[in-house]
């Protein structure tokens, strides 16, 4: 009876995925303990975030994909409305309008879009599967551009980029022709000057700073310089857990959140970094396998896009910390401190688990 109940409880969880997630979250807690100057409070609070996020993941994993499909449009519309709400009534924090007050708490609708976007586009392509034309891609592009535009307006370049990426992955996996892809790439390159002109000063500064961080060592370049120093001084084997000087002497900014990877790299070195990359890669691999084995187009596109989006989060964060990408305020998924990102990522994996564990029940 109890074992049956237990089996039912875990029936829709994916073992390999769960193991990999647990491993990464464990790494996250270990690094957080160091990054927070051994604050157990912070670690406990992060564990609470994880418990909540895992709970949500479990719930989502138990929702069959067909139900998710039905939810796609309402969630997307809700997300869009909330984004509009932010644009009109949002709170300003650090010069950006990203938060919306809802009752006692405040939410960041752009975070919701990270799930809503692939969900919506996967639903859209699934619906028009049989009669897919170019115009459908155009509509899909519109569905993508409107919320991204709103998020860019906040302004939140990082999230806008990530959501564009997740949407783009759906388009890409849905079979957008290579010719169009090449055309888009060209168009993107051509529009760069225009894009430059609409960027905010601080966004431009970040890009300029990436090209030469030493130009502004105490301003925008400071983050990149200090995080690169942290990584570089870690060397092949690292300085050892709790022994990173960049971390513990306060040189590293935002070291529990966006720059936690620098702490990891300083203390565990190249070896640690490569192992972490491997862990991420295996997790992504598992996600792609789930996508490859998914039963219908909706599930496939959704699983593939979520997995590739997850890869993008990790890549952008580590690229930013190691100084090959501009500083865009993207946390390292599963490792950075913070509940919102944890929830988003684990809900994504909940969807993957749902897709995987419900695949035999799906009729084609």
């Amino acid at each position, binding site marked *: 009876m109890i074992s049956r109940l237990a089996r039912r409880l875990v029936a829709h969880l994916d073992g390999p995925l769960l193991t990999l997630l647990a491993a990464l979250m464990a790494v996250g807690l270990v690094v957080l303990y160091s990054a927070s100057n051994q604050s157990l409070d912070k670690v406990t609070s992060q564990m609470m975030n994880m418990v909540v996020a895992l709970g949500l993941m479990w719930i989502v994993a138990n929702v069959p994909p067909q139900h998710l499909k039905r939810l796609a449009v309402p969630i997307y519309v809700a997300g869009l409305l909330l984004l509009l709400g932010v644009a009109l009534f949002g709170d300003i924090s650090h010069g950006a309008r990203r938060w919306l007050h809802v009752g006692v708490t405040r939410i960041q609708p752009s975070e919701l879009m990270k799930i809503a976007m692939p969900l919506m586009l996967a639903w859209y392509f699934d619906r028009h599967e049989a009669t897919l034309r170019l115009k459908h891609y155009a509509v899909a592009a519109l569905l993508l551009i409107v919320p991204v535009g709103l998020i860019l307006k906040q302004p939140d370049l990082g999230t806008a980029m990530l959501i564009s990426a997740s949407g783009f*992955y759906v388009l*890409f*996996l849905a*079979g957008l022709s290579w010719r169009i892809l090449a055309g888009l790439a060209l168009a993107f390159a051509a529009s760069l000057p225009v894009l430059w002109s609409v960027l905010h000063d601080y966004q431009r500064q970040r890009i300029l700073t990436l090209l030469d961080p030493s130009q502004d060592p105490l301003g925008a370049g400071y983050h990149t310089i*200090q995080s*690169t*120093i*942290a*990584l*570089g*001084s*870690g*060397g*092949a084997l690292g300085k050892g857990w709790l022994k990173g*000087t*960049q971390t513990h*002497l*306060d*040189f590293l900014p935002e070291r529990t959140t966006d720059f936690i990877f620098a702490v990891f*790299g300083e203390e565990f*070195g*190249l070896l640690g*970094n*490569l192992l972490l*990359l491997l862990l*991420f*890669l295996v997790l*992504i*691999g598992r996600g*792609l396998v789930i*996508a*490859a084995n998914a039963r219908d*187009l909706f599930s*496939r596109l959704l699983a*593939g896009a979520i997995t*590739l989006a997850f*890869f993008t989060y990790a*890549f952008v964060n*580590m*690229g930013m910390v*190691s*100084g*090959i990408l501009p500083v865009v305020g993207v946390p390292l998924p599963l490792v950075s401190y913070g509940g919102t990102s944890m929830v988003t990522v684990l809900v994504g994996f909940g969807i993957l688990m749902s897709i995987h564990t419900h695949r035999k029940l799906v009729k*084609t």
Partner: protein
Amino acid sequence: MKHRAELKNEQRELHYFRVRLVVGAAFAVLMFALLASRFFYVQVLQHDHYRTLAENNRISIVPIVPNRGLILDRNGVVLAHNYSAYTLEITPSKLDDLDATIEGLATLVEITAKDRKRFRKLLEESHNFESLPIRTRLNEYEVARFSVNRYRFPGVDIKARLFRHYPQGEALSHVIGYIGRINDADLERIEESEDAANYRGSDHIGKIGLEQSYEKELHGITGLEQVETDAGGRAVRTLARTAPVSGNNLRLYLDSRLQQVAEEAFGNYRGALVAIEPKTGGVLAFISKPGFDANLFVDGIDPANWAALNNSPDKPLINRGLRGAYPPGSTFKPFMAMAGLELGKRTPSYTIHDPGYFMLPGSSHRYRDWKVGGHGSVDLRRSIVISCDTYYYGLANDLGPDNIYNFISQFGFGRKTGIDLDGEVPGLLPSREWKMKRYKQKWYAGDTISVGIGQGYNLATPLQLAVATSALANNGVTNRPQLVRTIEDVRTGALKNFLPESLFRLTLKPENLELVKSAMVDVTRPGGTAAQAGMNALYPIAGKTGTAQVIAIKQTEKYVESRVAERHRDHALFIAFAPADDPRIALAVLVENGGHGGTTAAPIARKVLDFYLLGKLPDAPTLVQDSVTEEPDHD
């Protein structure tokens, strides 16, 4: 069929999808490989570079400024010392709004208009990232008030600093000098020297006086502390420490009480007095009046005080003993007499009849004696006692410029004495070469005549006069004057003594010396030009009065003191040593616009001698009142 086609279509789609998925996976692997290679580059190839940067981030070298050495007089009385006090310092480069910050601070601690002006001046002179004091000497209440509110003032700090203090006030300002904040010129000098590292952390440097000339000894060796700092620059812990080595103490020959006595003896007169121990060259007293309060300069003088000192007609900032060049006047005569005797141009018994003037053969120009009508018959002894000009006109003419120059320069005239102070001027003992170089003119016989009585081109500093007098007292051995007797290494207790250093050793015939010296003793006895100053002395004083003209008097005019504006009056001079038979002190006094050497300069000397030789404090605080005596000792 339809079903199969659909299935086939389905499978084709799945295939397409999987191809796309593989492309995506490949992209992910490629991007991760890019990251991995970036990690490899940063963490392995560039590791040393970044490790250094991290170390530099982490460790800052904090210099520990050593205690500056003390300056003590011969009896151990402190002339310059340090005390610890709190200052409120601002680092302007860290502030956005300096004025607002100062206003804010003013609500917590008192900041006067003077403080503000001084701060502005420091700000103009400062280099970029320095912290500058806005208020010095905070009391504990003020320290507490600021500390509580400190968070409101980033870039403002309380610092415990050692301050230099000169307890003796104006009397010693010209000898001790002062330290001041290092300015750009100092910085340049320091950076060129090999001492640059030793000045990391020092804000002060000796600017003048002994503080300047013994800077190397006084400064000490800067210690270092390797401190681990966080990103805010706050020290977290000390990793290593090299203790600073305190500067060496200076112990002077100078007697500060003697100095005070001498300083007070000047009353309101301007002038200089240098007293030397003949056997060693040690400087016993060194006055330049007026002085100034050296303490004003230590942390940047405020503009009002600076203007007052700099613009005063009394020129208190000029060290008259060291840098004031005056005609030696009749104080030159004993040296001329020695030259005449030693070079065989005069015998003790050689007597002239003085008509009150001297004429060169074949010239009608009269070189006048100060006494109209002349002194009658004058031998060498009398020429000194009554200071007969005519005698020396003739002697100078007989000696000629070369003899005068060669002989008298051995008493230290016309060249720097080499005292351990910077900025000394050489005075001037004219020679044919000098005149040719300076004026492109040959030497005229008339030039020699004025040189003979210490006028003409002749210029000497009071220090030079004292050195020459000391040489005479010391039987012809000229010792280099020296202020510092001992340098004391505070750490090891090792003492470095300055041994007397002879500049010249003249071999003078004892009978000649005896004659000149006894004539000089007679100067301070009844009938001499300084009889009044020498009255009732308990020891024999050898002296010589002198007068240095400030303005030229026409041939036909008579100099009448009361008719001449105060600043155009003659300078009064007096040289002396005592006890004459075994001199322990030799000195030169110059009183600017003092008139007669015998009436203004000699009494000052007497007070100094009395105090030094007898320990007697001057009972009368003022100078001799009756400046008009029956026999005006003009010279």
